[in-house]
Structures are given as structure tokens and as C-alpha cells.
């Protein structure tokens, strides 16, 4: 166990799985370090994220592949390779680039197993960074996990810290279905205690990062950390919160969410993706349908507005959910008074 960054945790997961299984290969733009540059330096870069640095040196050109900037062909190639015996991990860089290659994920990889009568296995991982907070503007800041969650056949993982990232990525690589693994771009330098050895965290099992009696907060990815901050402040005022990190949006641990709401009777959902048809809607619908009688207050959703992600810092701050807004939402559900029957 030692302190590792989110970036190091992902690198270590990739390295350990590549050591364990020769069928695990990496592909993506610059992930081998940038081939053919005039410096002659091999493994110069490790992708724009720096996540894969060192892996080309350790595993060589038959395991780590730079691609041209052609997402449709290499994401499709990763799907085709997965269906024919390899276990590719493809880096899409920014998840926003899914626009260039969605067909290969949505209509190909995700559909093979069902459409081919259960006879195909597609052990594919697509890693990509998501999220606002980096002044990366509208085409490099989206949190598109609802898009993937919507597609049957895909699994969707959103780790909330370095420990989670390592365990969930190893699980993703060992999983036999196509997995979308989303890394919040603001978190790459976040540090955490991360075991040195390989370990897995199962999909579809939520993690309770705080346990309390008054309000259940469900938050995704980076929002889990904001929810924890809000819960810690509220605790001092005597409001105790349960914070649920679902870890995966597909599968979604609906049981834990319903159990917690049954105990607290109040729900706040924090989702940094665009507000229409997002995970907050999904969780709110689940609870409204399955736990209506337990609710003591209306469900509150903390989300960005229905706009593209703005560039300017002042606007981006306004756009993003934060711990203050989560705190306000919790106080609002705590203060709810039902109207008396007429």
C-alpha cells in the first residue's frame, strides 16, 4: 500500500493485467508514446493523459499500439479484436470523441452477443476521460455516461478515486463484456492509498462512503467527493447523510439505493451530466416507483443546466454541481413540510 495518483493507479492496473494475460493489448492515440517523431525517443508521451507511460517500454510494439487519429477504425478494430481472441483496452482520449465512432460501440460491440444469439464474447474496454472543470470547453468536457448507460450490452464504470480506479479497471479488463471506463479529467493527480497488488472491485455493488439516518445522497464519479464534503459539513449541524457511490451505472446497484432510501426517507442525486435523461432522472424514477411510501420529501436532483459546457472559468463554476449546492439540496429536503390535506 502506498500513495498513488489516479493516473498511477490506472497505469498500474494496466501493467499488472498485461503481465498476467498476454491477450491484453492497448491501443489509442499516442498511447505508445508517439511513434515516428524526430526526437527518436520511444515511449515519450504515454498518451495525452500520461496514463500509459512506460507500458510501451515494458511490453513492446506487439502489445501497445499507437493509432492514427481515426477513432472509428481503431475503436472498431478493438471491437473486432475482442470478438476474435484478444482483450483490447482502447483509449478514446476525450469521451466527447465518441461522436466519431459511436457506431462501432453502439451498433457493433454492444450488440454482438445478443444479436448473434449468445455466441459472441467481446471483452473490450474503452477508456476515456470525461467531465467539466478543466476549461476544456464544450467539445472536451462532457459527462456522457448516460449515453452509454442507455445502450444494452455495455457496462459503464465511473471510479470516484484512485483506489476505486485500480480495482474497477482490473475488473473491467477481466470482464467478458464491452466496458466503458470513464475517468474524470480533473482527478488524474488526486492521490489515495492504493494497494500494490492487483485486486478487483465487482461491478454493480455500490460503495457507501458515508452512513447516516437523514438523507441518502447518490453521486457519480467526482461528485462522490463533493457529496462527501457536503455530508461532513452537514454532520456538524446534526444532519447525517448516507452517500452512495454506485461505481457502475450499468449495472446499477438498485438494491442498495432502495435500501438506503427506505432508511432515510429522503434522496438527493448528484449527477454532473446534462440534466435531461441522465442518471439522476434514472435513480429518481427508480425510487419514485419502488420506494414511494418511504419518501418523506420530494427527491432533489443536483445537476448542471441544460447547456453545453462553457469555457470561461466563472461560467464553468456556475455550470458545475459542487458541495455547496449539494448541501443546499440536502437542507431543502430536510426542511420540507408536507401540505396538510384540505
Amino acid at each position, binding site marked *: 500500500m502506498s500513495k498513488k495518483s489516479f493516473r498511477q493507479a490506472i497505469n498500474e492496473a494496466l501493467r499488472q493485467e498485461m503481465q498476467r494475460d498476454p491477450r491484453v493489448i492497448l491501443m489509442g492515440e499516442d498511447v505508445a508514446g508517439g511513434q515516428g517523431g524526430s526526437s527518436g525517443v520511444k515511449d515519450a508521451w504515454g498518451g495525452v493523459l500520461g496514463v500509459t507511460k512506460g507500458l510501451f517500454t515494458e511490453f513492446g510494439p506487439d502489445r501497445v499500439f499507437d*493509432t492514427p487519429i*481515426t477513432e472509428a477504425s*481503431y475503436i472498431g478494430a478493438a471491437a473486432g479484436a475482442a470478438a476474435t481472441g484478444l482483450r483490447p483496452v482502447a483509449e478514446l482520449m476525450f469521451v466527447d470523441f465518441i461522436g466519431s465512432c459511436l457506431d*462501432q460501440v453502439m451498433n457493433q460491440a454492444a*450488440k454482438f*452477443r445478443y444479436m*448473434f444469439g449468445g455466441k459472441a464474447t467481446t471483452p473490450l474496454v474503452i477508456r476515456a476521460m470525461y467531465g467539466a472543470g478543466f476549461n476544456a470547453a464544450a467539445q472536451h468536457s462532457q459527462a456522457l455516461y448516460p449515453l452509454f448507460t442507455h445502450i444494452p*450490452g455495455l457496462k459503464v464504470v465511473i471510479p470516484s478515486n484512485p483506489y476505486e480506479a485500480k480495482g474497477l479497471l482490473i475488473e473491467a479488463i477481466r*470482464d467478458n463484456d464491452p466496458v466503458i471506463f470513464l475517468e474524470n479529467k480533473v482527478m488524474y493527480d488526486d492521490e489515495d492509498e492504493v494497494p500494490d497488488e492487483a485486486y478487483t472491485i465487482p461491478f454493480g455493488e455500490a460503495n457507501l462512503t458515508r452512513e447516516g439516518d437523514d438523507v441518502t445522497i447518490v453521486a457519480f464519479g467526482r461528485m462522490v467527493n463533493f457529496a462527501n464534503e457536503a455530508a461532513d459539513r452537514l454532520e456538524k449541524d446534526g444532519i447525517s447523510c448516507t452517500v452512495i457511490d454506485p461505481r457502475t451505472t450499468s449495472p446499477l446497484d438498485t438494491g442498495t439505493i432502495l435500501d438506503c432510501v427506505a432508511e432515510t426517507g429522503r434522496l438527493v442525486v448528484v449527477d454532473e451530466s446534462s440534466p435531461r435523461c441522465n442518471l439522476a432522472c434514472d435513480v429518481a424514477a427508480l425510487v419514485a416507483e419502488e420506494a414511494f411510501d418511504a419518501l418523506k420529501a420530494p427527491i432533489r436532483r443536483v445537476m448542471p443546466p441544460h447547456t453545453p459546457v462553457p469555457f470561461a472559468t466563472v461560467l464553468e463554476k456556475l455550470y458545475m454541481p459542487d458541495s455547496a449546492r449539494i448541501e443546499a439540496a440536502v437542507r431543502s429536503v430536510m426542511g420540507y413540510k408536507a401540505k396538510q390535506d384540505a
Partner: protein
Amino acid sequence: MQIARDILLRSYRSMRTIRDFEERLHVEFATGEIPGFVHLYCGEEASGVGVCAHLSDVDTIASTHRGHGHCIAKGVAVDGMMAEIYGRRTGVCRGKGGSMHIADLSLGMLGANGIVGGGPPLICGAALSHKLLKDNGVAVAFYGDGASNEGTTLESLNLAMVWKLPAVFVCEDNGYGEATASSYAVAGTQKARAAGFGMPYFECDGNDFFAVYEAAGEAIAHARAGNGPAMLHVHLSRWYGHFEGDAMSYRANGEVAELRNDHDCLKNFRKSVTEISLLDESSLDGIDASVRDEIEAAVVAAKAAPLPEPEDLLADVYVSY
């Protein structure tokens, strides 16, 4: 060119099977008993068969929406295909794929594909598997002249060259992308496109099995030897519409009749092999009769086969969930 007698017999049988399969579907579809869309491969048989004659189960192909011919040429069971097209539980995809998604990965058949241009990227991946797993296999993408304009196809030509993949890109140019002629929709030439990527290019007359067999042999040998990908441009024609029910009002009167009379790959094959006494008429007639029976039996069995069960709806979305 020397072709072993068993290859000739097998290839003839395969082409005849495709022809009869598709002609029968044309008739059966009109009765309304077959759900969904069906795109027929009649007239193009020599292409799929001439290419797949060089492939074994180790090798991979990806097909198109017009995929029945490629499936049969790659060895997918005809009865399982027919049952699939009828939406039956005994179909190769248990009735959950249908005509456009017939696949059998155990035979290296990576699927027909409902998305134009969907196959070439997948074939880059299959070729990468062959290369890294060192099984000496090649991966072949069939795609049409319409798909030749898709970005996915052009990206795949580039990627296959960059990674020096054992891949062959077979452009089946039947002159129409749906209803729009390739003379209108394709800028430049397939040959120049291959050259643009530095990719070896072969072309052939798709009505002539022997021409396809020879050109495909060269392209596939090039890829299998580790020299990187190749493009094979096959000139051919489809005898039916884009899909069944297409009135083909965009085609001149008499165009298809002329194709059937003068450019029939099966007639051409029979003429070639009997003229020089490679095969005799009676052995070919025997194959014809046998295939007729096989198709009849497949249709009868498909119509009698059980429908999927309600529990099949939820099965096989994931390996584990």
C-alpha cells in the same frame, strides 16, 4: 490456372446453394411469411465463393447487409440460416439477429452487418488478432461500392496499412448504393483509392468465378504472407433490388434480363468447366438436384421450427450481469 477438382465441385455447389437460397427467399418473402428486411445476393455468387475458396475456418470475414452469400460461402449451415431468417429459435442466432445479422464466429464469420461500412474496422481488429495470435489467418472485409465512401472504410484502409495487417478489403461493386448509381456517388476510382494508401490493388470480373478465384488468391496470399493488406475490387451486378420489395424503378428496362442471360456466373462456370472437360454436366446436374433438396428441406424445417420463447428476450445481453 490449375484448380483442384474438389475445389471446383465445392465452389459450384456453394454458388448454386446461394443462388437457390436467394431465389427461394425471393418467392417466400413475397408471401409475407418472412419478417423484416431481406437483401438478396443473386448475381454476385462468384465473388463470395471465389474469395472464400481461399479461406479456412481460421480466417475471418465480415459481411454486409447483403450477407447470405458470404455466410454460405464461409460454410454457415443453410438450415440454421433459413431458420434465422424466419425468426425461429433454431436459427444460427436463435432468431435474435435475422437476415442482417447472421454470424457464426466458430467458422470465422464475424457477422453480416446492418450498418454500411460497419465491417472494415472490425476486420482490422480481426486481422490484428490473427497477427498477434500468430495463427496465420487473414481477415477479409466484404463491402459494397456504397460503403467504399464511408469514412470507416477509408480509415480502415489507412489503419490496415499503418499496422501492416493481414487484411483484404473486397469491394463488391454492383453499381448501386441502394438506388443511387456508383457512377454518381463514387468520386475517383477504387484503384486510385488503394494507391492513395499505398495498398496493392487487384480487380476482376465478378461474373467469372475463375477471375475472382485468381485475383482473390493473389490478394489473400499477399496478406497471408505478412506483406500487409490488399484491396480486391470485384465488378458485379445484383439481380434484385436493394431489398426485397424494391421495384427498381431507377434501373433501365431489360438491364436485369440481360444480366441474367449474358452474365450469369453459374452459367459461365458450367460452360468453362464442361468445355474443357474439367467436370461433366451430370455431376453438376447432381449438385443442382442435391442443392434443390437441401433448400427445400431448409424452408420446410424453418417453417415448422419453434418460435423463440419469452425468456429468450432477456437472455444473452451480457456474458454476466
